[in-house]
């Protein structure tokens, strides 16, 4: 039986400049998962729901598009 997974999508495009959690970490809604540089600002991407970080789909330095999945969470 696999736990349900959900992808965290980036609401903005930008470059990943920091990851704040690692696979296995338990997170809650509102926690900052990573920070993007976008429009010269440092903008955290926050979890919309709680869960456990399963994996990162991007690394520091990656350019992500609006709506692109950046992390996978176990939500079960």
């Amino acid at each position, binding site marked *: 039986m696999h736990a349900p997974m959900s992808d965290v999508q980036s609401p903005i*495009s930008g470059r990943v400049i920091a990851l704040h959690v690692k696979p296995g970490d338990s997170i809650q809604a509102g926690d900052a998962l990573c920070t993007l540089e976008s*429009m010269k*600002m440092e903008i955290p991407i926050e979890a919309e729901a709680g869960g456990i970080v399963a994996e990162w789909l991007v690394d520091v330095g990656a350019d992500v598009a609006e709506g692109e999945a950046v992390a996978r969470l176990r939500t079960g």
Partner: protein
Amino acid sequence: MSRDDELNELRHRTELAQRMGGPEKIQRHRDNGRLPVRERIDALVDGGSFVEVGALAGSGRYDQHGSLVDFTPSNLVFGRAAIERRPVVVVGDDFTVRGGASDGAVGDKMIIAEKMAHDLRVPIVRLVDGTGGGGSVKTIEQKGYTLLPKVRVWPDVTRNLATVPVVSLGLGSVAGLGAARVAASHYSVMVKETSQLFVAGPPVVERVGQTLGKNELGGSQIHTRNGVVDDEAASEPEAFERVRRFLSYLPSSVHGLPPRADANRDNPVDQATLRRVIPENPRAVYKVRGIVETLVDAGSFFEIGRQWGKASATGLARIDGWPVLVVASDPYHYGGAWDRQTSEKINRMVDLAQVFHLPVLHLVDIPGFRIGLEAEVDGVMRAGVRALTAISQTTMPWCTVIVRKAFGVAGAAHQHPDRFSFRYAWPSAVWGSLPIEGGLEVAYKAEIEAAPDPAAQRTAIEARVRALCSPYRSAEAFVVEDIIDPAQTRARLIEFANLAAPLRQPGLTAFGFRP
């Protein structure tokens, strides 16, 4: 027929109409997480206030003696009711009768509902749970010819948008005209998982090669992110609560004024917290909703459109009891830069304020329009100039508080450029035609390139320019009227709201409202 028989027939016909699609169809509807239309109306309006219009409409079948043997009720239920003791018109589709298809409404019920709201000058709430307007392909055989599409209700829909609050809830799979009626509103809500909205549903879309489930094609996760629908609710009762709250800020029609709240005119939050809320690091973000909630009357901020046009948090609120429209930059989305959707949302909100006489509070942190290839491809400037034009056209009293950035053409749209507006800046404010980053290289290109050490020259010029960027220099030159202690902002807003209140004038605005 005796008088008793006549009354008995009235009772009998009323009972038949109240059955809706019958127990089996109603149960299936409930099993899908949805309420029957009559329960929806009861849950939405003040208890016992619903007065139905057209309660006997439907299609009867008669035997050879002319006696009624079967009856299919109209699948459109409407009437007058009250919400918070103020009159409204409610119109709801009954999905349990012929899937809510609008040719099952019987006669002109939908049009009369819209006209009634217009002529009584009261809000209309549409509980939409039906499909298109032109009937099904079956109609071709029934009529013996094909219909040229015409949406007869649309002139009434258009007129109502200029006259009375129009609220629509998407409560099932709504397609075609149903989808259009939801989108053509001042405020719309979908229910997560149990409602979908599309031009055409999955079976039709499959013929263009896309095999998708209902929620994949038109769930609330799509339409509350693209702005077709304003908000999503977790359940139907939550959606009804949002309707009641939205209407509480508005007049019953443009011929009245937004009602002042009698209670809860205070905000106990320590206003001094605002002095530290803007980070010293200019690249860092902050939570704008907390600022709004500190400035307006406690608990009065009703956000609209949270999931789309995200560089601005917008909604209704009260200041000293007076309803106002709030537009507040959210730096979490491209630093507060206006992208296409944000521009569209601001346009929509400013028009809402104009139509219903709501003074506007604008909290500004706008680094400009969003820049770069994606923004250009998205056509940011078309939507951007529409927002600018809405701001130039509005005659509503306006108060701007510049909390951080105001740059470029979008920054200039922080208020109407040439009428009196209230305007304050916090000490954290910074503004200009172009940001120094990027703008400096353009303006001083020759000087930098000619220098023996271009990098050092660039740094020297930046230091020179930055020394002039204090907002106090601008205040000295009366470029901005006042820089205030953030903790004094709410007091200034209370003054604004009370001075603005008598300036509000009931009546139709010179231009209508394009949804």
